[in-house]
């Protein structure tokens, strides 16, 4: 078991290493360079050249990659903070520490000052949505899968498919029209900064609903499919013919087996909710991780893109690891391989 987790952790590191190489190389092909971005559109060519040389930007890709990794792991100082450059960049943590992601050009702040705050915001949104999606999908998935073809099953299936098919921007607009324009019950933006006159909670309502509507149908259908399958298994017949109450047949015998297959799907919603909700965050101007990633990409904020990608990949692989270990726990047939 320990060996299994150890192996998986090693694989995680390899995955993340490969990702950083790919992201670093890809950014190489984007137009513009850091020097011109840093100095802004009004700097002269000469000024750019000086900075370009000071930052050693004409070194080969490999050398710059190694330098970036070294800065990140706190082995060397980040050159942009060099007071000689007179850029005026300042990081309260110093210019050499572990986890130094560099300077965000877009937000004119150290990456660590902007990224974690945005990630926190998104986690709140994702957490609330997740806490609603999972129990809701389980309850409805199990109820409809329990009796395949029943009226409840059919209506839930149709609702689920319909909801999943509506894109987030469509449902968001629709909800905005009803609750903001027509009824005036809720705010149209969720900037998470001014809580007057709209409270924190009222700002969260619409983004959460959009995410739940979009994701719930998908997860519920996965649970339903698995439940339908489990209900046809001979061991369910055994349980019924043992004389167990139906409730116990479902809760003790069916549920756990029905969760094995959708378990991975449910966990995969975590990375999706954290990094894949760009549309929802943009529509509601929610200061989240996805919106930040979008803005960084549009601006060409290399340091922030690299940092955010690394975090996103980290979340994805961690979820996978948790998924594998959890899977082993709920499915005794593959325990301790």
């Amino acid at each position: 078991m320990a060996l299994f987790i150890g192996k998986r952790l090693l694989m995680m590191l390899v995955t993340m290493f490969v990702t950083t190489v790919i992201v670093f190389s890809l950014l190489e092909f984007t137009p513009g360079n850091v020097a011109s971005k840093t100095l802004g559109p009004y700097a002269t060519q000469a000024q750019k050249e000086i900075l370009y040389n000071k930052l050693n930007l004409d070194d080969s890709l490999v050398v710059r990659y190694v330098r970036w990794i070294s800065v990140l792991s706190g082995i060397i100082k980040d050159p942009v903070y060099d007071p000689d450059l007179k850029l005026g960049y300042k990081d309260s943590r110093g210019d050499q520490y572990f986890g130094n992601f560099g300077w965000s050009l877009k937000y004119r702040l150290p990456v660590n000052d902007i990224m974690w705050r945005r990630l926190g915001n998104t986690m709140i949104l994702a957490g609330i949505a997740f806490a609603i999606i999972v129990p809701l999908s389980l309850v409805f998935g199990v109820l409809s899968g329990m009796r395949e073809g029943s009226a409840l099953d059919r209506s839930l299936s149709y609702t689920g498919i319909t909801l999943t098919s509506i894109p987030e921007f469509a449902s968001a607009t629709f909800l905005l029209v009803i609750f903001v324009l027509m009824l005036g019950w809720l705010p149209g933006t969720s900037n998470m900064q001014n809580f007057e006159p709209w409270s924190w909670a009222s700002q969260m309502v619409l983004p959460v609903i959009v995410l739940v509507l979009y994701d719930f149908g998908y997860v519920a259908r996965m649970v339903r499919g698995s439940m339908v399958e489990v209900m046809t298994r001979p061991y369910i017949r055994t349980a019924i013919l043992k004389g167990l109450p139906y409730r116990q047949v479902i809760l003790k015998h069916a549920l756990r087996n029905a969760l094995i297959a959708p378990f991975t799907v449910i966990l995969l919603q975590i990375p999706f909710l954290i990094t894949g909700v760009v549309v929802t965050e943009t529509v509601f101007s929610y200061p989240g991780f996805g919106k930040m990633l979008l803005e960084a990409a549009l601006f060409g904020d290399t340091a922030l893109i690299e940092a955010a990608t690394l975090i996103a990949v980290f979340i994805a692989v961690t979820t996978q690891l948790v998924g594998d270990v959890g899977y082993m726990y709920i499915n005794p047939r593959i325990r301790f391989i």
Partner: protein
Amino acid sequence: MAHASSDDYVLEIENVGISYFTRLGEIPAVPEFSLKLKRGESYGLVGESGCGKTTVAMAIMNYLGLNGGIVKGRIRFEGRDMATMSDEELRAVRGSRISMVYQEPMSALNPSLTIGSQIKEVLAVHEGVSDAEAAERSIEMLSDVNMPDPERVMTRYPHQISGGQQQRVVIAMAMLSNPSLLLLDEPTTALDVTVEATVIDLIVQLREKFNTTLLYISHNLGLIVKVCDRVGVMYSGSMVEEGTIRQVFKETRHPYTFGLFDCIPTLGADKHSRTLQPIPGQVSLPHERPSGCSFGPRCSYFSQGVCDVGETPLETVSDGHHVRCRRIDEIRHDPSTVESEVVGGHGDAVLDVVNMSKFYEINDVSLASLFKGQSRHYVKANERISFRAQRGRTIAIVGESGCGKSTFAKVLTGLETATDGEIMFENRNIAAIPVHKRNQDLIRAMQMVFQNPDGTLNPSHSVGHCIGRVIKKFGIRTDSKGIREHVGEMLDVVRLPKAFSTRKPRQLSGGQKQRIAVARAFAGNPSMVIADEPVSALDVSVQAAVINLLNDVQKRYNTTLLFISHDLSVVRFLSDEIVVMYLGEIMEAGSSERIFMPPYHPYTEALLSAVPIPDPDIIQKRIRLEGEMPSALDPPGGCRFASRCPRYIGRICNDEVPPDRDAGGGHTIKCHLPLDELSAVEPIFNTRDSAG
């Protein structure tokens, strides 16, 4: 006939009709069925699949699903009508007063709950006992079903114990609240023959101990003889013959019952002394039943104007013996004719296997092995296999699952290559040549028939394409007209109409698919065909037809047939020579007659003693194997069978590889016991004095 009061009957099924309601309308699975079981009685229900046996059992439990129901009649259990019970009352009966043992124990147990929690809940729900008491009684019951180490088993999951043990768990679960009626639906079909024998012993033993009434459903007449007092033969949803074991087996009256007996191979005869008589046709589907006698279309005594008019009544022929047949007084059954035509071997060896071994390497990745520095283990699937197969002969390889017989077939066909030794096939060593390096001619010369015809025919290709491909590929014919002709000939050989060549596999029955598989294998005129359990997935009458077919086709082409099977009755019937394998090694080899008579290898002796025999007059010596087959991963060093051998003689068995003792006539026995001791045993099968 004395009229018993209703109290004496545990179960009374009176004129019950069971139907399923589908889009096609009502499907009468069981049109009318009656059965009465006295307390403490053991009743067997036999018939081919699709005859409604399981439907009856499920109706007794009142568990017919959403689309099934009892449309007429009544099922009374201990005097109460099951259909009028509330859900609450039904639950109180299920699992407590009536319980059930299922066909496949692995799937009948919940894979993600421990065995303990699955057993204990029976007591918790029916008797409301505390967890500690439930645990204690569960352990007690597990010991009653002869489960080794019951405390430990309680904490295990179903996949961690063997199939035989799983079935013991299901039986323990069923017996826990001391039910008055136990339904057993093919409880041993998924088990190996020696395991089956111990489970059957257990059922008999529990019945005596708890005086439980049994309803035993099986297609295996041999098991019915061992377990039951009375037997009912079902055909297409109705009872066609019913009586005591002796009445049904020895004074058989119904043509269908005759038919069943005629198509099962018995140990007393082989292909040279009797033929199997398959029942023609198939069980008619419930919505296509003919008028009059439902067996009419398949019956050789069918008489127009007599059998197909009106309902055929169930008539009493003697006390307790009922038969549903119009012509009962006119028909007399002749046992199948004897034809004696022994075809000897030609002496020309097609296959000569010399000291062949096949090991699989396993890389152990556990921490313990890392410390020991021993990370490589070998699964010794086949070791020191030597035998010779002559042209035109049938050689059977028998043994229980895990004995390495399928690995052997894989090595022969080149799906795997041998680790060591030689396989001389038509004077060429093929041991190390994988199939993709074998030339067309070599592949053509060795073909296979597999166990499951559903899985081996490509569902999107027509039958003609499937057989034609072989003919084309191996260059038997090359022009499309010639190929078509040859396909027609092959279909003729397997006795299917030529029109079948355009059909897709889904339009064929299981037996027809297996015929196609046989046609495909023989289409390239191979010199050897390997048949891996070719009939074990088929119903008895279809099985008889396919066995006959294999036999005829083999004779016609003078092909060597290597027949892999676990069914000793089939093997006895079909094969000239038998090779008995255990845990990767050959234990005994010799001609069919010699294997079935002393001297026996102790393992063969145990196998023979476990074969169910559908004849109440034959008594078998009772030898049961203890424990489980050891793992092929690091098997025992000396004799492979030492750990379970009933005739174990001491250290020598564990330490030294036993010699191959020559019992004469090519009969070899791998055992440390000297021949005279092996010979000095009673034959396994003895005929009981009929009078007694």
